[in-house]
């Protein structure tokens, strides 16, 4: 599948899940901050992507929820070294350098952009 087709379909999935027009859904859009995605939306987006691309997404594979739940990955609101390893392992296609400079757990949702979804789908479809 060509990249342009993947991008178009991912934007459609996100727009459907969030009840928005497709032109509101840009590659740089941060799901939580720009598109007001809530926890149910992350589940919906997962379903929409599975259905659209015929892929199977394991628990925590796309949105690594454990970072918000596991005490060894976060200390005093800051993601630990173990937590950073966990994030990098779960999201190998994400560049974490700028996040590492200020690794607050509250800023993790800012990593979840439409572009991240595109890269995720690309890695799944290529596999």
């Amino acid at each position: 599948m060509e990249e342009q087709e993947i991008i178009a379909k991912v934007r459609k999935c996100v727009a459907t899940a969030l009840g928005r027009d497709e032109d509101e859904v840009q590659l740089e859009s941060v799901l939580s901050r720009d598109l007001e995605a809530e926890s149910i939306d992350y589940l919906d987006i997962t379903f929409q992507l599975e259905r659209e691309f015929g892929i199977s997404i394991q628990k925590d594979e796309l949105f690594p929820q454990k970072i918000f739940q596991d005490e060894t990955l976060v200390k005093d609101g800051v993601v630990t070294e173990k937590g950073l390893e966990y994030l990098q392992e779960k999201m190998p296609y994400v560049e974490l350098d700028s996040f590492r400079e200020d690794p607050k757990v509250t800023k993790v949702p800012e990593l979840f952009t439409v572009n991240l979804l595109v890269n995720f789908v690309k890695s799944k479809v290529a596999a």
Partner: protein
Amino acid sequence: MSGYVFVDRIVENQPGERVVALKALAFNEEFFRDHFPGMPVLPGAMILEGFVQAARECLAAREGGHDRWTLDEVAGMRFNRFAAPGEVLQLEADLDKEEDGVIWFKGKASVDGTGVCRLRFALKVYDPNERAAS
């Protein structure tokens, strides 16, 4: 049309534009016994029915308007938190567009300013002979 009345009070009605209604939630209401036993919370489908009834009032108040509207479609009904006995639910419906006899509203339900539910829904004229398109 009446039957089960979900709306207690209309606090604002701009005919054909916007309506704000209230529904007070009482522990005594029978449906709470089943939803859920030991944890009474307002069912989403009842919030939807509340929106339908409130929007009906908004359209009935229009010049030459009527109240024979029924639910046509729902899109993206999402929940933020539960509403529970002891709270007063506020339903706000704003008319979004009107096309071919189908009227879309944007709805927002809240308790004390905190969002409970958001959705878009459409009403159409009640037709006792209506059949689904095959």
